[in-house]
């Protein structure tokens, strides 16, 4: 995990430096704010990964000498076949269109979105089709 953390921390450090240089050189507020925000974007996950890489058990994917058997077993749970992403997409488009055409599509959109969110939660809990 160390490489991942390093990449993100590099981003944090680079943009912190650039933000400071930009501000001192006579930059303006919006640019400095955006650069500083980018530095924070790298800092948050990067510092976590860096810290975690020192405390975690080594993973087979980080081990250059790993054997395929080291990674055997269950990789994870991968939901297959779910109607809810499509439903949520329809809901999002509905809410979006309401901003153009009128409030009523937002109501429809929110209702569908609520159904979709509930459906996803139930699906995840049961591990099966809802």
């Amino acid at each position: 995990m160390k490489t991942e953390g390093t990449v993100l921390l590099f981003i944090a450090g680079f943009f912190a430096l650039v933000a400071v240089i930009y501000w001192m050189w006579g930059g303006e507020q919006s640019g400095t704010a955006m650069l500083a925000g980018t530095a924070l974007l790298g800092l948050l996950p990067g510092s976590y990964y860096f810290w975690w890489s020192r405390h975690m058990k080594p993973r087979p994917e980080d081990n250059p000498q790993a054997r395929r058997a080291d990674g055997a077993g269950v990789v994870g749970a991968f939901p297959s076949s779910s109607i809810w992403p499509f439903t949520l997409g329809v809901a999002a488009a509905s809410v979006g269109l309401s901003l153009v055409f009128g409030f009523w599509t937002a109501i429809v959109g929110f209702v569908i979105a609520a159904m979709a969110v509930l459906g996803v939660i139930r699906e995840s809990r049961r591990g099966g089709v809802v």
Partner: protein
Amino acid sequence: MTTLAARPEAIVGPPEEEHGPSGFLKWITSTDHKVIGKSYTITAFIFFLIAGCMAIVIRTQLASPDNHIVSQHVYNELFTMHGSVMMYLFAGPFAFGGLANFIVPLQIGAPDMAFPRLNAFSYWLYLGGGTIMLLGFVTTSGAADFGWVAYAPLSNSINTPGAGPDMWIIALVLTGFSAIFTGVNICATVFYLRAPGMTMFRMPIFTWNMLVTAILILIAFPVLTSALVMLWCDRHLGTHIFTVSGGGVPVLWQNLFWFFGHPEVYILALPYFGAVTDILAVFSRKPVFGYKGMVFATIAIASLSTSVWAHHMFTTGTVLLPFFSIMSYLIAVPTGIKFFNWIGTMWRGSITFNTPMLFAVGFLVVFLFGGVTGIFLASPPVDFAMHDTFFVVAHFHEVLFGTVVFGGFSALTYWYPKYTGRMLNETLGKISFWLMFIGFWVTFMPQYLLGEEGMPRRIAEYLPHGNWTVLNRISTAGAYLLFLSVFVMLINFVEAWRRPVPAGDNPWDAHTLEWATSSPPPHHNFYWIPPIRSERPVWDHNHPDHTTLPAPLAPEPALAATVATGDEGRDQ
């Protein structure tokens, strides 16, 4: 239905039978990264064709000074939508939706993307957003017509009222979220789902580039979304963020937009750089030259690209010119490293010119010139002379078309066998390449000259003086050639569909992990993976006498019985 995916240790038994919906319902409910990747690819390609037709109309209009093929208003809609569809709906989604979704899990030995339902949701947001954007054409006031950059205050409700622009804004918010979710998905997949032995520095360059692209997406797209929300508020809630009368700052829009806009073009470019890297190595039958240099150069390009946004604003008179100038120049250094590494990959190789390799070399030739003209524009004084002329149009078409279309067709023809299990026709591929290559230069070289002669961009008609008319005519002829080249490519796809030629697992004798499995890959991708000891696991396995490993692969101990992949929960 959730399935548990397990990494295989040896050949598993017969493939599990797939239960579940079929047909249209299967497509709507699929969370398989391969299905979603194919959907993205096809949808993006359709958007490409639509935007290409708009370009043909634009070029036809510009072929004569006093043309009235379309009215001023429609012309303005056309160039706005051509740019918007190409940038937001084709180039990006084709790369991070179409290619990355399908290829990245395969290249790292993962069974799927980290968040399959989020992946599907991203696709539906993209399709919905894209449809909404194009539906702007059927509103009474027409589609958005303020340019794909939507500068304030032109884009506010006083100057551009109507539903079309609002739909454009909503569409971009939806597709923006689609991209952000895909960025999260790619990062999580690369960080957490790699196969044993697949360390970060053994991932293919395409996957590295997609990771860096994903981080760039997370940096850039939220800024765009925020700016769009602000614009919508100005248009509908009476705020004055971008209007002077209420104490706002119109230039703020440009700063926000270009902080997104410049990383955006690298989001569009980096995936195709990565694909071309892999392709050059395969068809030169050598490893990537300077792998670590490539990785560092990509990270450097991404970092620098986020620091140069105001080079699009040199002529506003409100930006710190030398800062943005030096940062823009500095991007040439890692880009040059990548270029020399590409040449180093081909150097002393054994090159065959299949269609993917032709397009990859075409990309190199075209992108080089586009990059050099970019250096010209990075100089503020030169930009004063060239800004908003056809010189800029030629430059960005050269880099974007060169990367996205040449690189994209290279990637598409290279990975087509993996997607579909069929081969494309080589002759048709070569014909479409040469038509595209010639058509490209005929279209865009005159535009450089037009820019040098002072022809501004985004104009529907012009007065005949200097060489404007003849240069425009030549450019239009080139555009028709490009149209023809895409048409030939379409015929290629149709022929491959009607008369399939089976591809096999690894038709190109390629290097990376996606070629270890069948074409197309089975459910959860791998029944078997080779040992991973370098960035070329399949090559090392197939050509043990020609590896770059320090020692031959040690045989691994006898493998235990497999873990069956089971389904938990009820069958559907």
